[in-house]
């Protein structure tokens, strides 16, 4: 009786419109309350809604609710021709556009059985690693911002912007370039592009030193991240975790090493593996990944510059349009060009999996062809979808304030989860 009086008194202290559900467990005597975190909460990196059951400041249970950003991209792709469906791959995980392009292109190239030129392989690697740096820059800034280190955000945004400018210089579009397409790349790099990448790479190690200086030995940062959100290797595998989040738990698996694609086996780099599987380890693994991406970029730059004028697109007319110059002189070429961009190409009946190591983990496109000009089924494996599955496990028994740190540490993108 007394406690219920207390409850009603308490509930009146909340302003109108805020409702908090309270439960009293008569067996254990625990009082818990259920609150909503999201769907529009700045630290959830999109529209993620978490229903948290709290015992005081401690999380008893965490239930993620997703789907607020569901746009039916898989269904839409099934109703577009193979080439037109490419632009949608940019739009699902909107922070790793070029990696998505590559995964889809690899799948379609297997279906139509086409070999792409050496230079486009090199540029695909270069673009993917730049994309990884851009994505990790955004992660670093927002992750630090969530935990309270505001200034990092401004600096990482500058770096990310430089990469967006590189992409803009290449294609005229800042983020959703669709520049990697089945058959190679849409076009060669314009003049002055390599110099721009070079100048970005030249200043990058210094910037990394600055980020490390801001965070790595910062006592508040260490306090907030060490021992928080621990995932054992078994927990991580059980949840289907991939990418840096899995490596931080001590599982040394990187698709670039284990199943190299686009010639990754020709590059020298290491993969970072964590030891404890906490938020701090996930931070450290990604910081090391940034350095390794820088190394790969350097090597790819050297290779690309050694091949001036080499083709960046297959000359297999089955999926690549005729060169522009030919359109002026050949009627057949003009017709073919028109057919290719209206009707598209017809891969034979079959199924193919294109898979890359994206910034968030294993990004896979499973494409099923029924022999028509449209994919019969496109399945997009979003690594964030599986990574988020590990969140309830991490949250249990931790403080509410740590939930924000944990969400940041698995680097989710809601476009990748809901598709």
């Amino acid at each position: 009786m007394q406690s219920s009086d207390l409850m009603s008194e308490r509930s009146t202290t909340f302003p109108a419109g805020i409702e908090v559900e309270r439960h009293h467990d008569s067996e254990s005597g625990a009082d818990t309350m259920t609150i909503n975190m999201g769907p529009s909460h700045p630290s959830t990196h999109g529209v993620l809604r978490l229903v948290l059951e709290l015992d005081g400041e401690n999380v008893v249970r965490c239930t993620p609710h997703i789907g607020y950003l569901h746009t039916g991209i898989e269904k839409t792709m099934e109703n577009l021709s193979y080439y037109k469906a490419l632009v949608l791959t940019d739009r699902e995980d909107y922070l790793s556009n070029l990696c998505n392009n590559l995964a889809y292109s690899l799948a379609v190239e297997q279906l139509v059985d086409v070999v792409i030129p050496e230079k486009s392989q090199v540029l695909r690697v270069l673009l993917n690693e730049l994309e990884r740096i851009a994505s990790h820059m955004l992660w670093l800034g927002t992750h630090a911002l969530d935990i309270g280190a505001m200034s990092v955000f401004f600096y990482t945004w500058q770096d990310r912007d430089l990469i967006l400018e590189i992409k803009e210089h290449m294609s005229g579009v800042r983020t959703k370039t669709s520049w990697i397409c089945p058959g190679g790349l849409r076009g060669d790099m314009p003049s002055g592009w390599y110099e721009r990448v070079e100048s970005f790479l030249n200043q990058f190690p210094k910037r990394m030193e600055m980020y490390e200086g801001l965070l790595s030995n910062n006592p508040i940062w260490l306090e907030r991240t060490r021992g928080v959100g621990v995932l054992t290797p078994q927990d991580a595998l059980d949840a289907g975790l991939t990418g840096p989040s899995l490596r931080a738990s001590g599982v040394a698996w990187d698709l670039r090493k284990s199943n190299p694609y686009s010639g990754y086996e020709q590059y020298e780099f290491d993969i970072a593996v964590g030891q404890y599987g906490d938020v701090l380890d996930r931070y450290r693994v990604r910081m090391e990944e940034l350095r390794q991406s820088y190394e790969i970029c350097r090597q790819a730059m050297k290779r690309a510059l050694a091949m001036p004028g080499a083709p960046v697109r297959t000359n297999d007319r089955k999926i690549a349009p005729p060169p522009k110059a030919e359109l002026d002189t050949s009627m057949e070429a003009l017709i073919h060009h028109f057919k290719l961009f209206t009707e598209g190409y017809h891969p034979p009946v079959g199924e193919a999996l294109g898979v890359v190591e994206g910034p968030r983990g294993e990004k896979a496109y499973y494409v099923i062809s029924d022999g028509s000009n449209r994919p019969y089924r496109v399945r997009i494996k979003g690594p964030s979808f599986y990574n988020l599955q590990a969140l309830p496990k991490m949250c249990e028994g931790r403080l509410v304030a740590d939930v924000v740190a944990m969400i940041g540490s698995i680097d989710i993108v809601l476009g990748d989860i809901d598709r």
Partner: protein
Amino acid sequence: MVDADVRLGLSGSDLAIRNKTFHSALTMTPGTLEGISHRFLRVVAEHGLQESVVDFQDCNGIPSFTVNADAVEACLRIAKENNGYDLLSDCFGVDRLGFSTPHRFEVVYSLYSIAHADRIIVRVALLLDEPCPSAADVYPATVWPEREIYDMFGVEFTGHPDLRRILMPDDWVGHPLRKDFPLGGEEVEFSHNVREQESK
């Protein structure tokens, strides 16, 4: 009919898509298990389940085994514990409405072995309204993807710990990734004055 379509805000092209029929002209070439020696098949045979593996396909380098629905849990357990496929890479559904296959849906488990760096696909073929045993006990990572298959294709998973819609709203009618679900044509909210607007 017209009134309902006006209320739904459907255009002519939406209606064309909704009324589109699919031709069952496509045949899937049935695979053969003869001459296939894969370590998955060997261990499955050791466990006396070779009758349960009914089809093999080569998906551009990835071996794909179709297993009977009642044996899927056992086969996945063998793949995980005896073959070392420790990571569930992905789990998704396929609607085969356009193909002249006896089954309607497929549930595809794409498995990866970190130690061997290779993949296999284990798939289950299901008729319409045929339930599929959940693999959540073997691979806990299938909990969410199986919810997604339930949501998108309407496949029921028996023994699933938490079978609810995951991406679509709880009160949604239909299963959007089915091939007979129209693209476009969903109800437009706030359509109280559509008719006034139309008559202007």
